[in-house]
């Protein structure tokens, strides 16, 4: 298997992939052309359902059950892949082309040891003699940057952290020294700092001459390592070019949306809008929510105590947005619950409009609850599955006995606030799109007329273009109604876009807080610095490009 040299490693012209279904043929890929050269990193970027994964999988004959793949040219190292059938694919898979899928917990067989998974391509293609397999596995794991590879090889996937699992998966994909590595969302489930390390590992492999085809929804990741970028939407490439060119001066509106999502506009930097300043100078705004020295601990059976929130104090002024930043497990979600009075703190107290939660009982407390509402990451699970959109919106109004005609009027108004058409009212939430569901959730949160809405990762589950729309709605609503947000997110771009002030949480503590601009531009705590550094970015120049809205 000597490389033919010369031509491109991968050459694809007019690739189409169709899936026949009961309701007609679904065209997932509609005529895309691209090439990958040796030692090059090529990225295909697109939102979910754009066809990017299917495109990549077509190269190893795994486009999916019943897929009809057609192409004017589909070549790997000069060999025509259109002629490859059945077993012949196996010579290519693992041996010439390595494959890394996202979600390493599911992509490594959970019932087998990590070592056995890494050894599989070695044995399948007889890369090394049988008795040397174990030693080779240990070497590969070590090469992928896994400490103590001998003992890790004997462990099961669930015993490894997300980052180590992803490294093991990469080690297994690279075991047979393939010429091309296809990486499908290789860092999606990882925290930012771990994500960086995995990207570094991929970049290192390119140094060895292995070509990488990177599939991602995340332009930030792509910006880190790609040489050439294809932007995909609805089965077609809408734009392509050298990474720097595409990212710095995107021409297609869709690319602009994706770029804008990464760059993260500062608050009020939305194009075509007058920049609204914070309601009043921070600190002088009327205080609506105040937390003092909150502590929340959980007892874990047999494993002692776990402190979720440790001595946290925050204030929220009327009509302002407090961003709460942190990685998974930092205690930000628990803080949200404490602010809503859904959890009792072990120490400290929360005051709503100057009145402490713990001083309120019975009907008084229930009435006060209406002052703080919540928007969840997954709106679908926050709606009673039996309810239509109308029932969902009416529920908070029924709770305070709003008369019928008044309810109808208020429901219509709520829909208008969030930009939903009245025809959604008859449908159940699961019949709505992701963006519509989150708009509905915002409308419901507004219904009781709250002063504060706690938003728990409200856009993390949405594609970039939908994300931008939902953030617009949140911003509009705040301007119109003067509601305050406590905006909890791991996503610095989103935080930057919406917040007036920011607190940064780590291990249940607030490590830094202040005006948004100050924290982002002049972070003081090392952790904040690390977080901001870990965000993949294009170049410093780039951050000033405002990027359009789709």
């Amino acid at each position, binding site marked *: 298997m000597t490389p033919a040299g010369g031509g491109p490693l991968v050459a694809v012209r007019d690739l189409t992939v169709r899936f026949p279904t009961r309701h007609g043929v679904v065209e997932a890929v509609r005529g895309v052309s691209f090439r990958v050269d040796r030692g090059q990193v090529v990225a295909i970027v697109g939102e979910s359902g754009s066809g990017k994964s299917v495109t990549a999988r077509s190269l190893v004959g795994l486009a999916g059950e019943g897929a009809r793949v057609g192409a004017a040219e589909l070549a790997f190292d000069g060999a025509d892949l259109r002629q490859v059938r059945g077993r012949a694919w196996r010579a290519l898979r693992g041996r010439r082309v390595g494959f890394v899928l996202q979600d390493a917990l599911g992509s490594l*067989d959970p019932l087998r040891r990590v070592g056995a998974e890494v050894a599989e391509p070695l044995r399948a293609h007889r890369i090394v003699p049988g008795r040397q397999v174990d030693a080779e596995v240990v070497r590969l794991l070590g090469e992928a940057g896994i400490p103590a590879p001998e003992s890790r090889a004997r462990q099961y996937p669930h015993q490894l952290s997300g980052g180590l699992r992803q490294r093991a998966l990469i080690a297994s994909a690279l075991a047979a020294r393939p010429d091309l590595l296809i990486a499908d969302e290789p860092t999606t489930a990882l925290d930012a700092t771990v994500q960086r390390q995995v990207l570094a590992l991929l970049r290192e492999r390119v140094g060895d001459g292995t070509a990488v085809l990177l599939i991602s929804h995340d332009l930030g990741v792509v910006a880190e390592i790609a040489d050439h970028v294809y932007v995909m939407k609805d089965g077609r490439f809408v734009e392509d070019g050298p990474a720097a060119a595409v990212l710095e001066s995107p021409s297609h509106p869709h690319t602009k949306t994706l770029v804008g999502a990464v760059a993260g506009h500062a608050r009020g930097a939305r194009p075509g809008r007058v920049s609204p300043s914070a309601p009043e100078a921070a600190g002088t705004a009327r205080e609506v929510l105040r937390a003092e020295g909150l502590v929340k601990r959980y007892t874990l059976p047999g*494993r002692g105590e776990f402190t979720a929130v440790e001595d946290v104090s925050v204030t929220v002024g009327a009509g302002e947005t407090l961003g709460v930043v942190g990685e998974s497990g930092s205690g930000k979600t628990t803080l949200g619950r404490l602010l809503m009075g859904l959890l009792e703190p072990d120490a400290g107290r929360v005051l709503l409009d100057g009145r402490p939660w713990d001083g309120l009982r019975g009907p008084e407390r229930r009435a006060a609850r209406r002052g703080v509402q919540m928007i969840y990451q997954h709106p679908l699970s926050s709606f009673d599955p039996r309810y239509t959109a109308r029932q969902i919106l009416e529920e908070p109004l029924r709770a305070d006995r709003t008369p019928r005609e008044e309810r109808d009027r208020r429901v219509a108004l709520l829909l208008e606030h969030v930009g939903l058409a009245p025809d959604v009212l008859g449908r159940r939430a699961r019949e709505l799109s992701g963006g519509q569901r989150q708009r509905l959730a915002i409308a419901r949160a507004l219904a009781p007329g709250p002063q504060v809405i706690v938003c728990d990762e409200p856009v993390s589950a949405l594609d970039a273009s939908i994300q931008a729309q939902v953030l617009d709605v949140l911003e509009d609503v705040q301007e119109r109604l003067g509601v305050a947000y406590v905006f909890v997110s*791991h996503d610095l*771009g989103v935080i930057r876009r919406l917040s007036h002030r920011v607190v940064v949480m780590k291990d249940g503590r607030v490590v830094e807080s202040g005006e948004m601009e100050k924290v982002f531009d002049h972070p003081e705590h090392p952790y904040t610095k690390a977080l901001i550094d870990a965000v*993949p970015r294009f170049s410093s120049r780039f951050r000033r490009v405002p990027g359009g809205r789709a």
Partner: protein
Amino acid sequence: MAGVLKTSPAGAAAARNGRRSGRGRKTLVRLVLVRLAASAGVLWGAVTVTFVLLQVMPGSTADVLLARSAVGPEVRAAIIAEYGLDDPLPLQYLTYLGRIVRGEFGESYVLRRPVWDEIAAQLPGTLLLVATTLLATAVAAVVHGVVSANRRAWVRSLFASAESLVVALPPFWLGLLLLTVFSFTLHWFPAIGSSSPAGLVLPTAALAAGPAAVVAGVLREGLLRAMDEPFVVTARARGIGEAALRLRHVLRHALLPVTTLLGWIAGSLIGGAVIIEIVFSRQGIGRLALSAVANKDMPMVIAVVLVTAVAFVLVTIAVDILTWVIDPRTRDAGR
């Protein structure tokens, strides 16, 4: 998506549970000890329930134990002494508990012989039937499940309908039909009351059909679900063959729910065998239990119930051990 610090559910769970610390790891010995302790508690509960039943049944406890058998006053006096029926209730309870723990189930006054002797005589027949049935269930289900999993949707739904039909057949009726066809009409197998190996075939078939259909369905679903897992794509992308894929990856996943189900079936077969033993007039615990119930022979009824409960509990522990072996994920952390 913008500046990305993705949350991972797994990562969050790990952070919450401190899972990577290694504490809470279950060794096999610990698993067995914990399960044995829990089972002992459950069995103690079962013994206590039988004691309460003896107390609340109409008539004196001695009368209940005697059922309707006519015995002289000296036997009656012996029962009262043996069970301490003149003692205060708590002491009676302790005496009762002590007897059961030592395996002293007493005398069946209806059969006029020790309860344990009778059970020991009947148990092997029942256990043999349960064992052959379990084997037949497993073999039939795996063959059927694997064959039917790899088909088009409409073929699969045909298999599923056939399974529904078999599950809906009352096993005793299936037994009658098998007898009618294969014994009385075709004379292939001995009719009833046979203790030869050939006599085991029809009872086993009648008893295994329903469970095999259920297990086959579960196995097929498991295979299909496992084929949709991302690790299957990864394994294929490494260039391994379809046979190796199924053998090394998919089958183990599909066998997990099947193991649990087979354990449950093994337990309930002890009950199911009762009916089949009666259809085929076989010797066994079933007939013993039925006649004990008919005669209100309480020492015998209680002994049969407790013995089968012990068997049931042992099977459950065996399944837990098997799951521990198959699924490494169950070895870490508690519930």
